[in-house]
């Protein structure tokens, strides 16, 4: 791709001239090349370390003995529930953010995307203050139903949704914003009401971005740690998802932590492969 771009302006010249141009364009000057190499080494070494020092021989035994299977199951289930919830309420929210002309929407967008930059632990504290037994909403819930969210599996989903949904909202909103509003007008002149237009025209047009946003949201939910451990705790089988399990294992049984990490790494790589066309293209932004 890059090579094609480089050759473009050289079209029509002799082959040697073309080669000279492209070679000159490719040679990396050392003041850029050296720091770049350092950065690559810095990013890759931890992964190399994990592979080199992983207890490969004991891997099956460790994964079977620890709560790995249970934690992985809990992680997959909660991350999937989180993604479904995020799609159901996040896509309409993205539509409102993309299409509303109200001035308050700009403020709303900033608030909605705040969890993207908020330290997750702070998110967990905030969730406790809202949905905890003495929280502003949790108090009513407890008084009326006797149910409290914190330290349940539901709390894991709440924490993950709080942190991960903005990823989906931002991705889908961007797609809706660049989607052609003219097509929605065309649908209206053909007799489609707004909800039909959304379902039959808008949604199919943003489907690729919706899928990417959902995968991103799911991956973020799978890795959620700070908000979860604050709001949901770390009870094996109830609230202990993979990241919490890694954290717990590291204190008691470091080889088990490495084994669990390898599992998460595998899932992450799978996500990258899924998203490669959308996110790994040069120039592709959020």
């Amino acid at each position: 791709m890059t090579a094609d771009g480089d050759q473009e302006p050289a079209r029509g010249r002799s082959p040697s001239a073309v080669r000279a141009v492209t070679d000159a364009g490719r040679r990396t000057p050392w003041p850029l090349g050296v720091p770049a190499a350092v950065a690559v080494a810095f990013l890759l070494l931890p992964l190399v370390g994990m592979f080199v020092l992983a207890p490969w021989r004991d891997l099956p035994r460790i994964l079977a003995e620890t709560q790995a299977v249970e934690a992985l199951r809990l992680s997959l289930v909660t991350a999937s529930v989180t993604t479904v919830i995020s799609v159901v309420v996040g896509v309409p929210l993205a539509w409102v953010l993309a299409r509303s002309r109200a001035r308050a929407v700009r403020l709303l967008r900033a608030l909605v995307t705040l969890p993207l930059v908020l330290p997750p632990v702070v998110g967990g504290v905030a969730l406790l203050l809202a949905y905890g037994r003495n929280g502003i909403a949790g108090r009513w819930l407890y008084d009326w139903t006797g149910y409290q969210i914190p330290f349940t599996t539901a709390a894991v989903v709440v924490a993950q949704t709080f942190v991960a949904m903005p990823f989906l909202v931002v991705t889908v909103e961007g797609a809706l914003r660049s989607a052609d509003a003219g097509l929605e007008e065309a649908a209206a002149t053909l007799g489609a009401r707004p909800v039909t237009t959304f379902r039959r025209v808008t949604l199919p047009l943003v489907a690729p971005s919706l899928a990417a946003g959902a995968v991103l949201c799911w991956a973020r939910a799978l890795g959620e740690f700070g908000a979860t451990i604050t709001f949901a705790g770390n009870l094996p089988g109830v609230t202990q998802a993979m990241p919490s399990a890694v954290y717990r294992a590291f204190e008691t049984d470091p080889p088990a932590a490495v084994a669990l990490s390898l599992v998460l790494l595998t899932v992450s790589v799978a996500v990258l492969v899924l998203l490669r066309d959308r996110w790994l293209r040069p120039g592709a932004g959020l």
Partner: protein
Amino acid sequence: MTAPSDGHPAYGTLPAGGALRADVGVVRGGFDLEVRADVRAGEILAVLGPNGAGKSTLLRALAGLLPVSRGRVTVGDQTWDDADRGTFVPAADRRVGLVFQDYRLFPHLTVLDNVAFSRHVRGGRRPDARAHGLEVLGRLGISELAARRPGQLSGGQAQRVALARALASDPRLLLLDEPLAALDARTRLEIRTELRGYLATFGGPTLVVTHDPLEAMVLADRILVLEGGRAVQEGVPAAVARRPATEYVARLVGLNLYRGAMTDRSTGRVDLDDGGRLFAAGHDPDDGGHVVPLPATRMLVAVAPTAISIYTRSPDAGSARNVWTGTVAGLELLTDRVRVAVDGTPDAIVDITPAALADLELRTGQQVWLTAKATEVTAYPAPG
């Protein structure tokens, strides 16, 4: 109400027999549009005007994509807009077929599903909607495109599909926004001819918005010229072409146009507002006789660029009653002739043959004499 022209009794067919009566005002930002347009069933009205004249605003208001600030829009016995009563029928309920300039075909649907879209979303079963869509595609001779996606269509094909989609929505009013503007010159020529034929099959009123006078002349039964949000002229194409009411229309149809006052009816002398005078004896065959206006009546004077002769020396006293001088301001080579712009009293555009240009050896800044026979000069009362 008459029966639908295509005569099928299938669900959703509406009688397309009602005339459009629109008398609307639309205020948008600093721009305001005030226009009245009546189009009979089966008639094609072209709305001709420069960019920013309000053509698209009118179209969007009629389609229900933009609310009117004032006035009424009715089609047949249905009222779509009535500002006084607060009536506004949303676009989805208007039964209006709008062919957008950029077509706006749904890229994720096949051509057939694009054309079947309207019937399906209006409650028809998908097989019925598709059967009807195929029939409309067949009527326009593009059945073979049914399975394609819009991305696989040429400009001309996309234009036909957009028209098919609009016609398949059983419209009571058909609106076309610059239908040929997005096509290359060669395709435009081809489509223009057949578009007229397709439009003739529609039984309801049709409104075509365009900035291309040729398109308006070929497609429309009547032309409404819009400038600055106001209708400045309305009439059959031949009348608009012969008697332009504004400089814009005159330029479009390629005529020199002057404003002035008739000071002597016996000689047909018109004193022009910007200096100079012209004797006019020409008149329209349409007039059914030479209408001689009263002295001092505000007049428009039209002279075709080919009716003016150009000389590099003072011409001998000939039969031409209009003789004046000027300097050559510019030369432009058109396909088969040379257009000479002359500054003088009055200014004029003169068309000569390339051979004549070679004989005359015209240069910019050169002094020239212009002549025009009075019989080639048409004067008519200025509208308004």
